[in-house]
């Protein structure tokens, strides 16, 4: 009926007519992106979930369903529990350190001084440069024999060469190293996030507080910090999610060692799932990230929303 009621139109113009409807054009513009993501993120994600409840390995690709057996085996493995603990320590220590340094750095970069642009450019480097390449540079800095840190310590007479620390060879020092590197990589991002937040605070709010007699600390912690919290929360989501799931620093720097002391979830999932070919257990290990990530992301998003209202 509709076709009869309409004036006779060439197919091309009917096509155009469709595009002039906002919702049709909207879905047409959005479809490729959504399809891509559904096919190559959504589908693999479901596949990962299925792997984790199957007996699939690279050498015996079977789809046999085994329920939660893989998860039970993993949880009973002390190596895995240690990995889980390492991951939490690595994530929270490096993000906390990064955030504190970021706040301090932003505070410094907020003041005008000659050469500020160059300083900012240099400070951004750790975050911009590919982390795999920066990690290689750190590996050289922490080298067991030619470490520049040790050279300085020896030259300053603090330690002698025989007792110079073996940075990547001792469990607690190796953990410290990966935390430092990740904090080093994250804090320029934190600085930038803080700066974006602080410059967005309207000047009249700060002026009003000054008139009302607020001092430096009061202005900082009762006015500026609460106002920039939503932006900081976004930054923290990125920081926590990417640290919690990271494997490149550990893979390149310590290879999980010494003796599993720096093994983290992403690395363990790679070792089991790809290097050893035990896909089902690897997938189960990786899926342990999911609940933590969901809690962090949902918590922060809710927090941001509440602030807005």
């Amino acid at each position, binding site marked *: 009926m509709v076709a009869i009621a309409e004036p006779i139109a060439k197919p091309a113009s009917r096509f155009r007519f469709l595009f002039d409807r906002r919702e049709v054009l909207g879905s047409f513009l959005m479809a490729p992106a959504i399809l891509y993501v559904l096919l190559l993120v959504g589908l693999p994600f479901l596949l990962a979930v299925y792997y984790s409840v199957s007996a699939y390995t690279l050498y015996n690709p079977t789809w046999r369903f085994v329920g939660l057996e893989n998860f039970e085996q993993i949880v009973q493995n002390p190596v895995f529990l240690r990995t889980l603990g390492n991951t939490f320590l690595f994530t929270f220590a490096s993000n906390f350190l990064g955030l504190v340094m970021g706040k301090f750095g932003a505070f410094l970069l907020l003041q005008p*001084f000659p050469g500020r642009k160059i300083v900012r450019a240099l*400070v951004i480097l750790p975050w911009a440069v590919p982390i795999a390449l920066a990690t290689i540079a750190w590996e050289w800095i922490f080298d067991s024999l030619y470490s520049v840190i040790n050279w300085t310590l020896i030259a300053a007479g603090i330690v002698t060469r025989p007792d110079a620390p073996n940075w990547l060879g001792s469990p607690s020092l190796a953990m410290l190293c990966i935390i430092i590197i990740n904090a080093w990589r994250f804090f320029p991002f934190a600085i930038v996030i803080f700066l*974006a937040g602080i410059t967005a605070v309207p000047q009249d709010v700060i002026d009003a507080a000054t008139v009302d007699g607020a001092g430096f600390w009061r202005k900082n912690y009762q006015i500026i910090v609460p106002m920039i919290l939503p932006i900081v929360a976004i930054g923290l989501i990125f920081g926590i999610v990417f640290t919690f799931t990271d494997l490149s620093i550990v893979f390149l720097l310590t290879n999980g060692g010494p003796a599993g002391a720096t093994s983290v979830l992403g690395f363990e999932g790679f070792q089991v799932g790809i290097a050893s070919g035990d896909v089902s257990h690897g997938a189960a290990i990786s899926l342990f990230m999911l609940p933590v990530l969901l809690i962090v992301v949902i918590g922060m998003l809710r927090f941001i929303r509440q602030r807005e209202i």
Partner: protein
Amino acid sequence: MQRIIALTARRTSFYFAIAFFVFVCAFPFYWMLITSFKANSDLYNVTNIPFWFTEAPTLEHFRYLFEQTLFGRWLLNSFTIGVCVVAITVVTAVPAGYSLARMTGRSGEALGIGIFLTYLVPPSLLFLPLSRIVADLGLQNSMWSLVLVYPTFTIPFCTWLSMGFFKAMPPEIEEAAIVDGCSLFGAFIRMTIPLSLPAILTVVIFTFTLTLQEFVYALTFVSSSSQKPVTLGVATDLIRGDVFYWGELMAGALIASIPVAIAYNIFLDRFISGITGGAVK
């Protein structure tokens, strides 16, 4: 007098703090630079002062890198991958970002958050199933697998980024074009796209840098040397067993880092307004 002393003390401690930050951030890169120009006999002598050249600087490591390794090939691979991923990302993410920005009501907001969450799905969760998909498509051990897979994070990221830009662009511009006789689609092509060229440029730059920074997928899917992108090639191929070619490693890392560092510094402000603007509005 006392005030002058207090002021000087404050100034000094301020510049001291700045110097500390710059040192912490830049030292590893200084270290790359100086290592890559040092002769091996200078590098591996613990009695030399490591912070400067004891022997004359040399281009030996760079020569080795370009003549004896596949470094040139890796650079070319990275460039090819980057260009293809940029093309895929721009044609999919920019329209999607526009569409999301103009969508009103709850469904638009929910889709926007959905896209944001997709960006947060980590490679370390997806590499196992994706390696199977890559193998099924016959792309294992080929850099084209990375062209296929990298858009899984660049599309969500750039959709989010461009959504922020389009939200800041007043819809009245398109409405004016429609009143003047443009179709809705025509208004998007003829008005919105030309006006959003700076946003598209930002998308191009950050897609490219994201592909250069990626490591996990490349490590998982590509193992033959001639197919590696530069980040993976430098990090894995210049180490033979236990022997680290430190001079070459640092030279390679330096060359691959420079373009990304420059791009970030130029486009930083747009990047920040993009990632925060979509969420905090």
